[in-house]
């Protein structure tokens, strides 16, 4: 018997029982939609976050941090120069951060001030103001969410955290003062004595976004590192600069010592080896690449769980197919008997039912894939605000890769074939005598 004839007979039989076919196909459609949509959430999240991480560049960057225990490992200026001598390192930018107290009127808060390279400083997206040029006086770029942390210095109440009101501070236009922490001036009673005399702080710009919009730069203040260093040297002349270590005798080192250095590797392929190299030296190392990989691993698991949930409804659909084909074989006992008497091969009889089941799987899968595309669009429209609010990244929540529809339809055909296999095998065992007995 020709394969095309087997297919034709199966389709004819499905058409004969339109309602039942439609309902069974519907089951597969729902199953396909749930699997495809669930998987698409995983792909969407992964894709969007990776795109976000890659957009900030840094795929070739690694951050080397001091391990906190071994003096020999201090990340000093000379050590950073040594790193630069390594062939695969094209750039090294040390990090430095100090805490400072910021006040304006009765409002005050403590924030971290980070010293970064001029290049990095210029990469920060600004909402107001302009980026300071190299060699200019000490002025900072303020994170857009710093405003939320201001408290009333008289009552110690936080308008935002206590009353959900945004403090009436305008970083750009208000007169802002800052004072640096000074451990040596602390009298042990008055917390204010911990800080050096306040000075006016010049704010060059504020990071893009409102006071409640999260981004990578929203919580700290930024300044070019050399500017910060000379400012601190002036501020703390003859004293220990906060966060800078001292030797056994309590004297500061001659060189600057950084908590971490960001290194740029010449080739993405060398990142992994470089990470290992510094790790073996005894540093703590993190890289964007590892972080993306870790992220992806987490999302793979999330996706697996989501897909598994979706697969349950596909399993129910598969049982539906088995049920439909079983019914069909019972109804057609006599017909099967007649076919056997007339010399239809046993395998062909089985193939008829299996291809019926496979066809149901195909139809359900195809319709399911089409509907999944529509629903994916809906999810992305509805989920857009969720992405920005809950995850803080704008992008698609659901994404269907090009290959997924093909794999999905292939899989539903396979599900149909497997679901139809057992009833089909039973059908082949129906006796030819069923044709003759009148029951």
């Amino acid at each position, binding site marked *: *018997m020709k394969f095309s*004839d087997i297919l034709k007979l199966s389709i004819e*039989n499905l058409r004969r029982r339109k309602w039942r076919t439609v309902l069974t196909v519907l089951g597969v459609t729902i199953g396909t939609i749930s699997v495809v949509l669930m998987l698409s959430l995983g792909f969407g999240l992964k894709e969007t976050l990776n795109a976000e991480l890659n957009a900030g560049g840094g795929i070739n960057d690694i951050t080397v941090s001091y391990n906190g225990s071994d003096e020999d490992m201090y990340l000093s200026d000379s050590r950073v120069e040594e790193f630069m001598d390594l062939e695969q390192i094209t750039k090294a930018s040390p990090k430095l951060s100090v805490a400072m107290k910021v006040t304006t009127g009765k409002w005050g808060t403590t924030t971290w001030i980070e010293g970064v390279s001029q290049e990095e400083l210029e990469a920060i997206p600004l909402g107001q103001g302009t980026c300071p040029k190299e060699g200019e006086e000490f002025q900072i770029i303020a994170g857009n969410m710093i405003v939320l942390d201001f408290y009333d210095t008289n009552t110690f109440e936080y308008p935002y955290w206590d009353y959900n009101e945004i403090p009436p501070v305008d970083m750009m236009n208000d007169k802002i003062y800052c004072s640096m922490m000074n451990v040596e001036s602390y009298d042990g009673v008055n917390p204010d004595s911990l800080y050096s005399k306040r000075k006016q702080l010049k704010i060059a710009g504020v990071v893009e976004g409102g006071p409640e919009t999260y981004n990578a730069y929203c919580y700290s203040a930024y300044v070019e590192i050399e500017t910060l260093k000379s400012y601190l040297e002036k501020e703390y002349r003859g004293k220990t600069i906060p966060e800078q270590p001292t030797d056994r005798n309590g004297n500061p080192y001659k060189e600057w010592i950084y908590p971490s250095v960001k290194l740029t590797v010449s080739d993405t392929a060398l990142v992994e080896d470089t990470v290992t190299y510094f790790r073996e030296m005894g540093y703590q190392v993190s890289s964007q690449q590892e972080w993306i990989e870790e992220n992806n691993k987490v999302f793979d698991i999330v996706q697996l769980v989501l897909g598994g949930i979706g697969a349950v409804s596909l399993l129910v659909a598969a049982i539906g197919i088995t049920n439909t084909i079983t019914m069909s074989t019972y109804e057609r006992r006599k017909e099967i008997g*007649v076919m056997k008497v*007339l*010399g*239809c091969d046993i395998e062909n009889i089985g193939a008829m039912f299996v291809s019926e089941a496979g066809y149901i799987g195909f139809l359900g899968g195809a319709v399911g894939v089409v509907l999944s595309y529509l629903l994916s669009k809906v999810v992305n429209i509805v989920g857009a605000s969720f992405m920005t609010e809950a995850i803080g990244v704008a992008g698609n929540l659901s994404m269907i890769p090009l290959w997924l529809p093909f794999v999905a339809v292939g899989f539903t055909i396979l599900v149909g074939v497997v679901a139809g296999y057992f009833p089909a095998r039973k059908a082949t065992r129906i006796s030819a005598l069923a044709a*003759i007995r*009148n029951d």
Partner: protein
Amino acid sequence: MDQLKDQGKEQSAQGKKVLVEVEDLYKIYKVGDERVRALDGVSFDIYEGEFIAIVGTSGSGKSTLLNMLAGLEPPTKGMIKLGSKRMDRMKEKQLVRMRRKHMGFIFQSYNLIGTMDAKENVAMPLMFRGVGAKERDKRAKEILKLMGLGKHMKHLPSQMSGGQQQRVGIARALVTNPKIIFADEPTGNLDSGTTKEILTILRDTVNKKNNTLVMVTHDRNLAQVADRVIHIKDGKIRKIEINANKKEIIEDEDY
């Protein structure tokens, strides 16, 4: 019994070729603790191109015998040989193949596929043989015309009379031009006029095309259309009657 068998063998001496050889065939059904001897030691030969009728009362074992000849049921004991092949030793898959290649089957209740029209029903055995759609169509049309159903090609079984349906059934059995055709009570559901019509078709087919035909009937009068009549009772052959001139009326028998 031996004597009856010899009666069968006698004819091969007259130059006819044996197509089916049946020897010492038993079929015993177990119903609870009871054993029903549906066939109780049957031996006979069927010659090529002959029309054989199997007659007997209800429950005598006619259908059982026919089913076994067609390989639809395995015998409990005994031998069935088609040509040189031992049917009693075949697995179902081989039996299906034998039927596809060499046999045709006509049912009492027609057993046409309800969703297929006359032409498609007739073409079905060709489809099982892997014949292409065009060729199938052509051959089905030809044979339906021969059966006088040229105007009913596109009719579904439910749109035809019993006689017409049975003619479609016969067309379906003949379309592959099989060596041997089996018919179990082919006129059992038809009135006497239509019965005559169907029997004439069967008789003509054997005469013209030289197929072999085995027909089961409970009606001794109808059996007279055959070349030979095997009388069966309680699973045993009681008599094999030769209708040399096919015009004799059956005599009163003592069974």
